[in-house]
């Protein structure tokens, strides 16, 4: 008994020491839905976390908890971070929205940043990237590179973000190649190399010669390389996994946002906000274009990048028709954020039916 008591006391003292040490540092916590080694979504958020450490050095301390389930566990993990002295907490999956808001109510002094949700509070901000701008660029490239005019698209869950990507891609694809069509496979996961690879194989068997993915593992690009077709990477530059097949990739870049928000907390200027950054703010980037892409196609892609940044071009520029051929966005108009955020219909040129419709 005595020894156990001593051990407890020693451990408690250690805990106290750690607490005192951390008092003058800003502790920044991250809750991840996947493993940091996924080479995609979570990996890119973790790169953002490391950017905070690199920028602020001794002034901050960062923590992460990986592979947190979106069920009942997330609320406890978020609360544990809040109650262990973290002043800024990033929760980086849609399913963490309600738990984040619940915990935020109990910890009004802690700042929360939730990625991809829509619920905000005085101490809860939301942020997301306009990945669909990158889809436009990859649509232009895919339209020029396809020979079979069949594009395979591996989609995760039928939420607006993913549907928006499919639509932006398809609009750009058919702008340069009106005969091209898009086949979509829903894999109902963000990260499952086996399933993603199988979906890629099935799409290639159906004639697809460019594979797009809205899932996070490099498996589809690897399959594409093996089968001699093209691929567009997701979330991070996947060139090293499939150097021949990898046309480009849509890179999530959270570094500058994470650094800016951390700085705001350090300066005491942090305020609730809703940030939706795209190519212009650097939250979305295109990976280097494959040297096999003809020069004029690269020039077209780069021009489109510049035009989106300058506002000359919008990924959803009317007229935009839905699958039934009905004009949803009239000529001269562009889709507003409200329409983009709740998009649950396919544009013309996408094959199949949206699940749940």
């Amino acid at each position, binding site marked *: 008994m005595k020894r156990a008591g001593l051990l407890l006391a020693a451990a408690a003292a250690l805990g106290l020491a750690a607490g005192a040490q951390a008092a003058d540092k800003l502790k920044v916590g991250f809750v991840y839905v996947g493993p940091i080694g996924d080479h995609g979504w979570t990996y890119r958020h973790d790169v953002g976390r490391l950017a905070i450490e690199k920028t602020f050095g001794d002034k901050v301390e960062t*923590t992460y908890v990986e592979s*947190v389930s979106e069920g009942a566990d997330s609320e*406890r993990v978020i609360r544990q971070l809040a109650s262990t002295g973290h002043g800024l907490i990033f929760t980086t999956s849609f399913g963490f929205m309600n738990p984040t808001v619940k915990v935020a109510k109990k910890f009004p002094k802690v700042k929360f940043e939730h990625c991809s949700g829509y619920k905000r509070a005085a101490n809860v901000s939301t942020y997301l990237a306009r990945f669909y701008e990158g889809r436009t660029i990859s649509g232009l490239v895919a339209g020029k590179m396809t020979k079979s005019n069949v594009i395979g698209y591996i989609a995760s*869950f039928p*939420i607006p973000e993913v549907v928006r990507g499919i639509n932006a891609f398809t609009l750009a694809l058919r702008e340069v190649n009106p005969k091209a069509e898009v086949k979509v496979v829903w894999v109902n996961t963000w990260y499952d190399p086996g399933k993603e690879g199988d979906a890629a194989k099935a799409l290639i068997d159906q004639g697809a010669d460019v594979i797009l993915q809205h899932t996070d593992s490099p498996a589809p690009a690897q399959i594409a390389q093996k089968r001699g077709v093209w691929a567009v990477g997701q979330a991070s530059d996947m060139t090293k996994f499939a150097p021949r097949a990898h046309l480009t990739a849509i890179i999530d870049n959270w570094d500058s946002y994470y650094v800016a928000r951390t700085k705001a907390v350090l300066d005491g200027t942090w305020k609730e906000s809703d940030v939706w950054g795209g190519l212009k703010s650097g939250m979305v980037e295109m990976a280097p274009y494959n040297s096999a892409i003809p020069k004029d196609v690269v020039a077209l892609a780069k021009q489109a990048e510049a035009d989106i940044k300058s506002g000359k071009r919008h990924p959803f520029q009317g007229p935009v028709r839905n699958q039934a051929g009905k004009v949803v966005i009239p000529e001269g108009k562009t889709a507003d954020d409200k329409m983009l955020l709740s998009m649950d219909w396919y544009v013309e040129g996408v094959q199949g039916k949206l699940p749940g419709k």
Partner: protein
Amino acid sequence: MLPRLEPRSGVSAAMMLLTPAIAVGLTLIAGVIMFAALGFDPGRALYTFFVKPVSTLYGVSELLVKATPLAIIGIGLALGFRANVWNIGAEGQFTLGAICGGGVALALHGVESWLVLPAMAVAGILGGLAWGAIPALLRVRFNANEILTSLMLTYVATLLLSYLVHGPWRDPDGLNFPESRMFEDSALLPVILDETRLSIAAPITLLIVLAGWLVLSRAFLGFQIKVVGQSPAAASYAGFSEKRLIWTTLCVSGALAGLAGMFEVSGPIGQLHPVVSPGYGFTAIIVAFLGRLHPVGVLFASLLIALSYLGGELAQIELKLPLALTGVFQGMLLFFLLGTDVLIRYRVRFGRRGAQIALPQGG
């Protein structure tokens, strides 16, 4: 000369009860060695992993929240496993319970009545029961292996939930995101400790433990289960119906998993999500065995496994240790438990074998 295993003449009952404690002790010792090898202070690491998570009242309440589904499912599974009925699909039955219980909550949205929760519980139980009855029917009728059928039905259940929250049950004000609306207060389990998520599910779990214990030790059903498990031939001579036991154990374990699923969505989650379980149905299999297939043992095992999850989270936060550590601890615990089990049933002998004894085959 290779060591070999010889069966012992008798298995000590005291040792059977002691081995889980020995396994925990060995796990701790191995943990100390591992932390020291990784360059961490073993005392502080073990404290963070096993003590700190429950050093506050909130921590204890979270331990109970996490252990509740594991215990409820584990008790149902233990009954079946004792009768050699291998229900591996508790995850699916849990999901069906969440779907049916949650469905009632959504259908009765706006109804302020104390009857909402009992109705949800009944629906959850029936949902899990139905999902357990399918493998029972396939086994009894077509002799289809319930390990495979119950496991495969898990994926059906997950996809059904996914369809519902992406489609008909989607929150009308949720911008098409895949989750149901939040349940009303009348569809949420009453919290029994302020400022925590500890609900009446925890005391109900204790009642289920007690009921499971009584069934096994006092009821004729429990006797039949034990006889079938230990000696199927003796059971058939005694005229016990194997079919009836398959039906009963699969339905009961399904119903309990369904109840646990309903508790989860009407308790800590409070809505339907594409993900309602971080694998409770599968973890409960470990819990059942760790608890010696005994309801009280299952209760302790569920607390221990729940603690390993909480400790894993805290170790990531406080010590920046990797998540894999949780898996390593659970793996070591099982390894030492199975290892000590082998050693109480067999003795290790070196040297040439005297009288030729056939090595018993595991199975």
